[in-house]
């Protein structure tokens, strides 16, 4: 086998080898990324960010981690306390069932709103939707960003 053939074969095999080296490095980076994501706590399926709050409690910009069942209202026993004259003591419950979020209005005096529309009993909502209780507005967001 002369030198020329050797170079030809070398280049061919090296090219294929390098393709796989590239693939291996990329896949290593993907795995590292997935492992890092898996280490982050994911016990909270979502969060509520306060967009507007005339009373100052909760404060604008504050973010609440949500449990599977999160009661909202003016009473201090709620997971999210809304100190607003237009909120009822036990105003509404936010629940995560199956693959979806649901807001249930607990027959509050002034009602609950999703994207500006009053809800009737239970209504589904998605990430990015906006909900309003009393004069306080929240946005539902995914926990991991």
């Amino acid at each position, binding site marked *: 086998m002369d030198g020329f053939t050797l170079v*030809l074969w070398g*280049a061919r095999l090296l090219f*294929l080898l390098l393709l796989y080296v*590239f693939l291996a490095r990329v896949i290593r*980076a993907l795995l590292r990324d997935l492992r890092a994501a898996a280490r982050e706590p994911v016990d909270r399926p979502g969060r509520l960010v306060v967009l507007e709050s005339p009373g100052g409690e909760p404060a604008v910009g504050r973010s609440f981690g949500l449990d599977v069942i999160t009661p909202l209202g003016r009473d201090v026993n709620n997971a999210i306390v809304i100190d607003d004259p237009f909120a009822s003591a036990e105003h509404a419950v936010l629940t995560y069932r199956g693959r979806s979020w649901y807001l249930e209005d607990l027959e509050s005096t002034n009602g609950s709103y999703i994207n500006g529309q009053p809800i009737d009993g239970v209504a589904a909502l998605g*990430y*990015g939707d906006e909900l309003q209780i009393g004069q306080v507005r929240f946005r539902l967001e*995914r926990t*991991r960003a």
Partner: protein
Amino acid sequence: MTAQAGRAGTSPAPRSLPRVLGPIRPRARWQELRLLLLVALTLAIGSVSLGTALTGEVGLHDPWGLGIYLAALLGAHGAQVLAGRRTDQILLPAVAMLGGLSLLLMERLPQDLVIQRFFGTSFGLAEVQLIWLVGAITVAATLGIIVRSDSWLRRYKYTWAAVGVGLLLLTFVLGTEINGQRLTLQIGPISGQPSELLKVILVVFLAGYLSENRALLVEQDTRVGPLRLPPLPYLAPMVAMWAIALGIVVVQRDLGAALLFFGVFLALLYAATGRISLVLIGLVLFLLGSAAMANLFEHIRTRIDIWIDPFSDPLGAGYQVIQALHAFARGGLLGMGLGGGLPEIGGRPPIPEIHTDFPLAALGEELGIVGVVAILGIYLVIVQRGLRIGVAAADDYRSLLAIGLALVIGIQAFIIAAGNLKVLPLTGVTLPFISYGGSSLLANAVVVGLLLALSDKGVEPPPLPRPGSRWRRLTRRAAA
């Protein structure tokens, strides 16, 4: 009562403005740089392999073309470093590797397959492809840098849908017919294939529509016997989609685009709702439609006959498929080496549309199954990145957009790779980033650019939803 009172005062606009115009800090992207250097080394070795095989002397093949391509990649990397956004660092190298393979392949094919004249100079296949590749990298990097808000896609989804349908109708009416397919739209000196752009518009529209109506699709049921279906009005877009796909097949004779559009639609529907029943209905509709089409139209029946038995007409309809299978067979495990395959028959390659429809067969012959598996692996990496960006996105719209964009590339690559390998009937879609063609490269570059923009972790929050869409208000009123 005062529920609506506070709305007017708060708008996110003042807060987001300084962010767009604010100071820009460069941010190093070491991972991307390392991977790009590896791409450069790989392509250089490939070029040596190609040059040595073609000329009989050890050396690079067309160092200028390779140099220009690598310089464009470096430029895209540098621009992203200077822009300082925290976007994905794996997409660009992965796409760069596929584009580089495309360049090596086009340099290797007979240059007179395509001759285009710009400003009095005529360019051959590889040179035209190089121009488009550089353009595609520029488009992807530019979109990845400047797109900071998705509201221009999100707000105007029906406008985009109208643009898409308009493009389609324009092609129906004014399109020029090439090889029995009415795909190419020529306006003055510019010609292009609108179906490539259409697939991006389709994803933009579907992501908007599905994220807005996701809750309703998941929540409500219409019971038909044992089946639990979503509310019937919401099936209307599905039927419309099906009709459009069939329309593409009938008028444009473009089986591949129809398959791609319907596949992406079903996948996104499943991603948005998680309801397998919708996908099953879609598949049934698809099979019924295909069966009817196969009975009605000669060219579709021919495609299916070739797929089942190409050897029944080896010199006519089955010619391309058989030659592709032979190419894969010649390639074997390690391939003939770059520049080693494709003995030309009378100065032409044995497969007529090798640079657009059969690049995978050419690469299979020269790189063997080992190389083909690596290429398919790179496509999988791109899809994985897109899905990952979708999972991490802040809201449903961005999730569905990212997932849809990634699946467009993945499904398209699957359709044409399977067509080359005789797993599916052969259809005329391009192999993303590898096939020759400006429309295809630029449309896929737009996809990658949008994915890059969506992957930014420090991007502005999604805009506030509008207070209930018109459609939702209408249905609410009807329900009350």
